[in-house]
């Protein structure tokens, strides 16, 4: 194939026309998720490292209850946010608002359940961050995750309010997509946290 034509450069126009690169926002949000994963990894490792190293109670097996309902809510919110996105793509704003609102309610239910759990642990079982290693690592890991949920909820609610006010949210499809990726990430982290805290650690 060593014909003379292989030695000719493709024309600059042709290179330019065929030049396609990934969207920078996509790369940015994926980098953010990667760096967040590293953060969670370290805190999870710390949790696992300190399982069973308590010098005094309360112990996880005595005080922890499975947050079944909250987990179902959080996991299904990943589904509802996808439904909301599909509606947005078809420009069906009513259905978008409905599914988006449900996503927010599910997230709020999760945070509410965490708040209840913490309230009970602190007031009834007298477990604080200073009580023992379980308290130290439990509040750190679950709290880190919960703060991510709150951060996500803040933006979910922001989008919801903007939409209610009549902002043309379909012009920001990419940003909505990135927000939903972040939300999926927070859900995925809960799979790990749930496994480590409520199954392995109990």
């Amino acid at each position, binding site marked *: 194939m060593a014909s003379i034509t292989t030695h000719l450069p493709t024309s600059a126009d042709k*290179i330019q026309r065929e030049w396609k690169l990934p969207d*920078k926002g996509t790369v940015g949000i994926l980098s953010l998720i990667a760096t967040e994963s590293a953060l969670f990894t370290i805190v999870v490792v710390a949790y696992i490292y300190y399982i069973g190293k308590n010098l005094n109670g309360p112990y996880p097996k005595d005080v922890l209850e499975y947050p079944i309902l909250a987990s179902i809510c959080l996991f299904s919110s990943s589904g509802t946010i996808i439904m909301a996105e599909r509606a947005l793509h078809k420009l069906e704003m009513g259905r978008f608002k409905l599914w988006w609102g449900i996503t927010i309610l599910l997230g709020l239910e999760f945070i509410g359940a965490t708040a209840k759990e913490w309230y009970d642990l602190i007031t009834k079982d007298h477990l604080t961050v200073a009580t023992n290693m379980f308290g130290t690592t439990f509040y750190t890991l679950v709290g880190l995750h919960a703060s991510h949920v709150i951060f996500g909820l803040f933006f979910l609610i922001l989008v919801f309010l903007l939409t209610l006010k009549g902002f043309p949210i379909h012009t920001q499809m990419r940003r909505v997509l990135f927000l939903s990726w972040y939300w999926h990430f927070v859900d995925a982290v809960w799979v790990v946290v749930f496994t480590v805290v409520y199954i392995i650690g109990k």
Partner: protein
Amino acid sequence: MASIDYPLNHPVAHEKEFSFSEWLFSWITTVDHKRLGILYIGSALAFFLIAGVMAAAMRLQLAVPDSHLIAPDTFNRLFTMHGTTMVFFFGMPIVAGMSNFLVPIMVGARDMAFPRLNAFGFWIFLFGGILLYSSYVIGDGLSGAGSAPDVGWFAYAPLTERAFSRGASTDFWTLGILVAGLGSLASAVNVIATCISLRCPGMTLIRMPLFVWLMFVDAFIIIMAIPPLTACQAMLLMDRYLGSHFFDTQAGGSAILWQHFFWIFGHPEVYILVFPAFATVSEIIPVFSRKPIFGRAAMVGATIGIGFISFGVWAHHMFSAGMTSVSNTFFAASSMIIAVPTGVKIFNWTATMYGGRLRLATPMLFCLAFLFQFLIAGLTGVMLAMTPYDWQVTDTYFVVAHFHFVLVGGIAFAVMGGIYYWFPKVFGKMLSEKLGKLHFWLFVVGFNLTFVPMHWLGFWGMPRRTYTYAPGRGWEGLNMMATIGAGIQALSVLVFVWNIVHSLRSGAEAGDDPWDAWTLEWTTSSPPPEYNFEKIPVVRSSRPLWDLKHPQDPDWKYE
């Protein structure tokens, strides 16, 4: 955004007359990657001078035995602040500054992917540095006299717990670094997105200049390595202020977990810091040998290899902490393995020079010294990777000699070479060659006079971080030598600063391409206009400017 044609007579911002406040405002509010790059490197050099003065003070104290020039607790603060500043407020902003200025121009883009995030990154880094240094004034709390952190640059917990480290100085260390780490993350995300999404037409990944490749991989290491540091800093703060027990051995916490978490960050950090040096050398050596880099693909492969392996070697900093022999063996082996891709690089740089027509201008001189000194640093690194050997010399001056050969003999030399190489592009003026050569020779002599003797001091048992030593142990001569060397280094840095000031005022005009180089940054004017390129270039090979200069023999024929 591929090819917007700007009008040729587009007004260039720096040609306008500005009042001082307008000028200041324009620098504070800038989102231009070139200006942020200059700000990063300017503040890095300022921190470099401060930490250098601290080093000089410590060398003066250690020049003679039983010296009482500096009090012991002041000495502890000096080595803590020296190390912390050099790593987090000189090395890190050098990474961010060089990649900020050069990566977009080298890939043919008009700015970084997220310019405002970029500006945020710079300012939060700078405030981190100011926060750290404000401990000198308010470190004991507002009522106290004030003192800087004195816990060493890796601040082993539990020594940093409230019981052992009173006052607020440790918190200044923790928060200053935590905040600066956010800045590093912002700039790393930017570099990744710029390299992936903003390359000019025709610049495939493999055609990216090696400089860009190294900064690209460096950014990946940063986004994976900074979070462990952030996490353990947060745990430390919780221990100190919320009463948690992560590092509290009285309550079941671990005395060793901090070491693991810190070095999971700390060892990749070494590669984060050294990659700009590799990047600079990979650009300068080919241009000054008049040959394309030897083994481009191998260089890229070695870079990625180092990136991965760097996350699997951390515990070689902890051989003396009493790990199991399995961990000791694993980390000894992995640390030796990482010498392989690094060796590939050394061989390729040497092979690039082999048979080349060498021009011994100042940038090249610095790179040659880098090769020799970094090789020695690598060899002592392999020595230290052997567990039993490490047990003998750990926490002695041998280790100090080793990492100063990496950080000064390697990184500082290459970075200074890089400054001589790219200064004409940044400011449009050449740095003086005469002063440059004086700077170089003083620095080589001073550096080696300081740090070569420290290997022997280590063999002979002189522990690091002691503020003085008793006479009659055979350490006097070598310590005096090291101090004289430090003086010569200080002199050379003064020559360097004078060279910059002098050349900024009355340096020779550089022109667009003073070194007859091949990468895209030399196709635009010096200093580059705000928009970098009037027309986004289209490239066909890894040396686009060579193709342009040699239409009869372009690179794309062979790639």
